[in-house]
């Protein structure tokens, strides 16, 4: 029944989606649909089904916690049962010992799990993928064994009995019907939170981080902090689920909180659809309720269950609702609704004017001194120094393997380097990557790094991440100022799409666009951060001649706005036509520097490019 109620929601939402998103009726319809679906178990009139529905609601919350951690932020957590257990025991113990209200217990569960999530997350989240999975699995097992062995506190294997049922506002939640109402209220609250999280800048940044951590960080996302925060939020939600579980069962036992349980949570999440809220509800129903319904076939019950689970995963590799996403529609809508009122240009102008007073009035915006990058004893950049003047286009050229991209990586802090980098007179050599982006250093990538699950509008919005004017949580909570800023951000994104002629494809997945357009999306995303300096890494690679010329126009437009540009490029005709000045590097060292015309005549450069033979440099590279 729980599965069915999940499906009703899907059906309701699907029919809504086909209508105009603007329809005034849709919130009402959602409320009606959800209400009907959730009251379904009550209509069946059997306490058993209501009991199962409560269990379903609790596991749905647990699955939602993974929707944040794994689905949205891409962090594989095998430790949700650990947080579930921590929440359950924390709440039960607090309510039993101090005789406080259930709500206090639930809050304690939330806070304790959240705090432990922060403490565990900080070191463990340096790991990636499956290694993170194993580390969290280890954490879950440790929690399990501690619960089991700390008899004085948890009752050990005997468990905790006589956990009070909740009493709220004079209401006694001591029967399944009442408790179902409570659990559903929590579920809706959590689902709403999850939804707000996913459609806010925060969720978008998490999704970007999941899709491509490097590109996300270079869009101004503080990877380390967001990882830990997402993990801890998931932990807190699991803790709340644990609290509900404790006061429903009124009995806790360590065997509820094993790695098998964690694995089942992952299964629920995968079965329903990764990162999908409604999918989580559906997944919880299938994984936890179907074995109960299968009591009709006692001898082969577990056998059928195993087969069913496998079949669902094999038939729906993306989860049953895997491809359906809520967030993208909402955010893209925000962008497209916005009128391009020149807000981005205004923001850019403000940014460029606001040069810090202590910065030398000199027209050098970026000074690089003695930059060195070594990979295992091999110097990729070897004592490079150069200046970028305010408002100029500086071309950096050099043969393959001369260290051009490494220079950009060092400037943005993606690879460690020595030497000094001054930006607007401040040394930034030690600054974290995402902070350099926020300072005004944006870049594109030679190998396109667009977020595979996002459409063009979302990608540009991610680029704006560093320009948020309010703390992140205000966007999630949708407070007034943050809401207004979000709308402004949408306007600015729209303006950028117009500028780069991407408005028509705003709702398409960036990865599915023609190559030339993908390059422009990258530039739009980089510009969205309101940069003072734009670093372009071979933007013309793979473009046709015509597209190349369009690109040159774009670069000039950017420069005319007052943004300084460093252009790394292999195609000589592009560099020669747009660059104001050129630096030539070879073996990580500066070979020559000067105006394009001077470079073309430089014997050393010709030699480096073409060996001893003399000839037209303009053919070099391609």
């Amino acid at each position, binding site marked *: 029944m729980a599965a*069915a109620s999940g499906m009703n929601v899907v059906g309701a939402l699907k029919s809504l989606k086909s209508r105009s998103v603007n329809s005034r009726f849709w919130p009402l319809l959602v409320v009606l649909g959800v209400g009907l679906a959730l009251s379904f178990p009550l209509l069946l009139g059997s*306490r058993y089904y209501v009991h199962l529905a409560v269990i379903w609601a609790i596991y749905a919350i647990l699955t939602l916690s993974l929707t944040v951690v794994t689905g949205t932020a891409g962090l594989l957590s095998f430790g949700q049962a650990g947080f579930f257990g921590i929440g359950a025991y924390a709440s039960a113990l607090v309510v039993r010992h101090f005789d406080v209200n259930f709500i206090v217990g639930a809050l304690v569960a939330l806070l304790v799990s959240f705090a432990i999530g922060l403490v565990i997350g900080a070191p463990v989240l340096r790991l990636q993928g499956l290694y993170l999975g194993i580390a969290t699995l280890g954490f879950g097992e440790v929690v399990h064994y501690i619960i089991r062995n700390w008899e004085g506190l948890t009752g050990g294997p005997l468990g905790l*009995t006589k956990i009070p049922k909740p009493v709220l506002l004079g209401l006694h939640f001591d029967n399944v019907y009442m408790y179902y109402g409570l659990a559903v209220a929590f579920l809706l609250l959590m689902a709403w939170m999850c939804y707000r999280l996913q459609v806010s800048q925060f969720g978008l940044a998490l999704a970007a981080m999941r899709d491509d951590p490097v590109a996300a960080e270079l869009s101004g996302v503080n990877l380390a902090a967001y990882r830990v925060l997402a993990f801890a939020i998931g932990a807190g939600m699991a803790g709340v689920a644990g609290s509900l579980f404790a006061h429903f069962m009124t009995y806790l036992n360590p065997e509820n909180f094993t790695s098998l349980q964690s694995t089942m949570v992952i299964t629920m999440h995968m079965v329903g659809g990764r990162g999908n809220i409604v999918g989580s509800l559906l997944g919880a129903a299938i994984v936890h309720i179907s074995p109960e319904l299968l009591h*009709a076939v006692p001898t082969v019950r577990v056998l059928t269950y195993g087969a069913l689970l496998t079949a669902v995963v094999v038939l729906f590799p993306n989860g049953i609702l895997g491809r359906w996403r809520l967030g993208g529609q909402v955010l893209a809508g925000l962008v497209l609704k916005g009128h391009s009122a020149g807000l981005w240009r205004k923001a850019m102008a403000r940014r460029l004017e606001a040069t810090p007073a202590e910065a030398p009035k000199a027209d050098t915006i970026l000074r690089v001194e003695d930059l060195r990058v070594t990979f295992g004893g091999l110097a990729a950049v070897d004592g490079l120094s150069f200046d970028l003047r305010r408002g100029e286009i500086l071309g950096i050229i050099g043969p393959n393997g001369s260290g051009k991209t490494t220079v950009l990586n060092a400037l943005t802090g993606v690879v460690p380097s020595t030497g000094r980098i001054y930006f607007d007179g401040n040394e930034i050599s030690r600054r974290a990557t995402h902070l350099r982006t926020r300072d005004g250093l944006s870049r594109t990538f030679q190998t396109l790094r667009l977020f595979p699950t996002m459409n063009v509008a979302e990608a540009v919005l991610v680029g704006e991440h560093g320009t948020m004017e309010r703390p992140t949580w205000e966007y999630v909570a949708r407070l007034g100022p943050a809401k207004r800023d979000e709308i402004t951000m949408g306007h600015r994104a729209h303006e950028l799409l117009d500028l780069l002629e991407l408005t028509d494809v705003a709702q398409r997945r960036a990865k599915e666009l023609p190559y030339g357009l993908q390059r422009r999306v990258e530039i739009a995303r980089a510009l969205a951060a309101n940069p003072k300096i734009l670093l372009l890494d071979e933007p013309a690679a793979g473009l046709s001649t015509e597209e190349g010329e369009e690109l040159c126009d774009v670069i000039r437009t950017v420069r005319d706005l007052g943004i300084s540009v460093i252009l790394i490029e292999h195609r000589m005709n592009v560099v020669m036509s747009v660059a104001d000045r050129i630096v030539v590097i070879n073996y990580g060292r500066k070979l020559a520097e000067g105006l394009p015309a001077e470079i073309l005549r430089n014997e050393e450069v010709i030699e480096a490019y073409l060996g001893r033979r003399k000839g037209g440099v303009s053919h070099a590279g391609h």
Partner: protein
Amino acid sequence: MRSSTGKIIAMALIAVFAFSLVLSGCAKPKEEVILGLIAPLTGSKADQGRQFKEGAEAAVKVINEEGGILGHPVRLEIIDDEGRPENAANAASRLAAMDGVIAVVGPSSTASVSAAAPILQDAGLILWSPAASTGSLVTENQLVYIIANPISVYAKYMPAYAQETLGATKVAIINVSDDWGRNVTNAQLEILDDYGLEAVEVTSYTQGDREFRSQITAMMAENPDVLFLNCHYTEGALITKQTRDLGYDVPILVQATCVYPQFLEIAGEQGEGVVSFDSYPPSDSAIRQEKTAWWKETFGYADFETYHINSYDIVMMYKYAFEEVGNFDDVEAVAEVIGNISGFQGILVERTHDENRLPASDVFYPIVVRDGAWVSLETGQ
């Protein structure tokens, strides 16, 4: 296309669901009453679950042949909880919502009983576990009964034997770290002093562990005079075997949970001389052999183990209690009758409850492994 597959899934789920509704709805002839049985039929405690089921089925068969309870035929509603407390709670809720359920047999462990008891209590159903042996379950819950001797009773057997027969002073205890293992060990530790014993080492393992050599070595370093194994039979046998393999010939006492043929199979020759304490007359006693023969003749198989006996007697005592009261509705009266049961002739022993509604039997039978079989310690000597 996606939405159509979604619809198919939704319909399939609804169909499964409707089907189960029909199943639970149609099997309801007027006269029949239902006894719920919550048992671990799958998972690591499945052997226990099978005995629950067979014992209860045997009793129900006998009852129905003799005209049922108060004239109503009895049906068993068997629900597998895989030995997991959470599933026991689900099962309890299922039985609580079902029409015609008069009482519940099971579930197995203290943890599962703790999980199921609040739900059944709310529904006014008596729960009677064939395996749990924690006395507080009964004293703290009005409608809960156990049939095994309470831990407080049988925790004495090992220390008493160690002192009186072995003249030991130092013991080492190893226990499984589940609800039962912890409980027994704690109960033993409380009374060791009374028997002039000192615990030189207490250590535990996780159900499913196989390698105990380092644990045994650490234990034996304290030179205990005797080992108490508060274990289930697989690990009990492995520990026994590995202790002997390591060359230690310290006397080993095991709990009745080890009195299984599998213990003998796994421990092999190294199991010889291990002593345990059964609450029922052992398999070489005349009464046990007589009853086993009767069981085989009546039900077609010779398997007649502890939980067969427990489960069978529980069902029989339910019948007695309901018929004493004369209806199925007055649960409190039924509970009172059960609480006051005295001298009820069970299949193998008499059943009596003490003032705490707990089994009052203090009889036990020391047994020993000799020539690959569990035999009475007295008759064997």
